[in-house]
């Protein structure tokens, strides 16, 4: 099954990339209050039990995909 992991800079953590994107969007004329830049990882995982897959994905995030000091993560299962 397919899962999408979204990794974001934690709230309150300075995000210079997001700030640069935000000011560029404003320069284009968009009324943007805030932009934050994270990372997206699509994972194709064996099995069809979403609960078991979620457990594995959480371990992937904690061990590699996110750095818990600065990043939060969210796991999504896109509708097939």
């Amino acid at each position, binding site marked *: 099954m397919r899962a999408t992991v979204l990794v974001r800079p934690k709230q309150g*953590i*300075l995000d*210079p*990339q997001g700030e*640069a994107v935000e000011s560029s969007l404003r320069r284009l004329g968009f009324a943007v209050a805030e932009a934050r830049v994270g990372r997206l990882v699509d994972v194709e995982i064996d099995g069809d039990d979403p609960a078991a897959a979620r457990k594995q994905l959480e371990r992937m995030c904690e061990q*590699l*995909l996110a*750095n818990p*000091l*600065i990043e939060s993560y969210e796991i999504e299962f896109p509708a097939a």
Partner: protein
Amino acid sequence: MSDSAPHPRIGVVTFPGSNDDRDAAWALRALGAEPVPVWHADPALPELAAVVLPGGFSYGDYLRCGAIARFSPAMEAVAAFAAEGGLVLGICNGFQILCEAGLLPGVLRLNASLSFVCRDVRLTVERSDTLFTARCVAGQSLTIPVKHGEGCWFAPDELVADLLDRGQIVLRYAEPCNGSVADVAGVVNGERNVMGLMPHPEHAVDPLLGSADGALVLASLVDAARDRVAVTV
């Protein structure tokens, strides 16, 4: 090797994408050590008195700097070496790897300026009571070059306060550099046998290169390595 080895054997690990391994080996040799090349795929270390993780872009800096190198067989051996009390110095990418591996506190992030910074910087020695800075005096100013895009050290406030209390913040930038929390340029672990720093001491070991201040750091490591019984893992 015995603990009185005149030329202590210091391993220099080469990962795919390391590019300061030869400079590190050259500087260590110039300062009286015997540099020993270690390949990232080596699952065991030869008999060594210390290990240096050099600068570069291990594994292309994929995902986060240092995040992938942490899983290389050599790094597992280095982690075991450190756990036995072995001396480990990480420079630039080596510092990033040690943070990602959990051997040093904090994490290195994209510079606050978003720009790669490549120049000599002034540093202040906060602690000379570490094996890596024993040749310095507290408060001393050092000029050592940096060259990195992701050297902005970050740790939560409580952790920074703890590290300051325990004397683990060893080097600080004396001028704006990359946006590091508390101007941190180098830290040691709680056991004080593992250190990481973003500046490159191996590029500053001869006045001809603009500064020889880096030699104070590396020669401190060589002194400490000379005093140690080599650890085999």
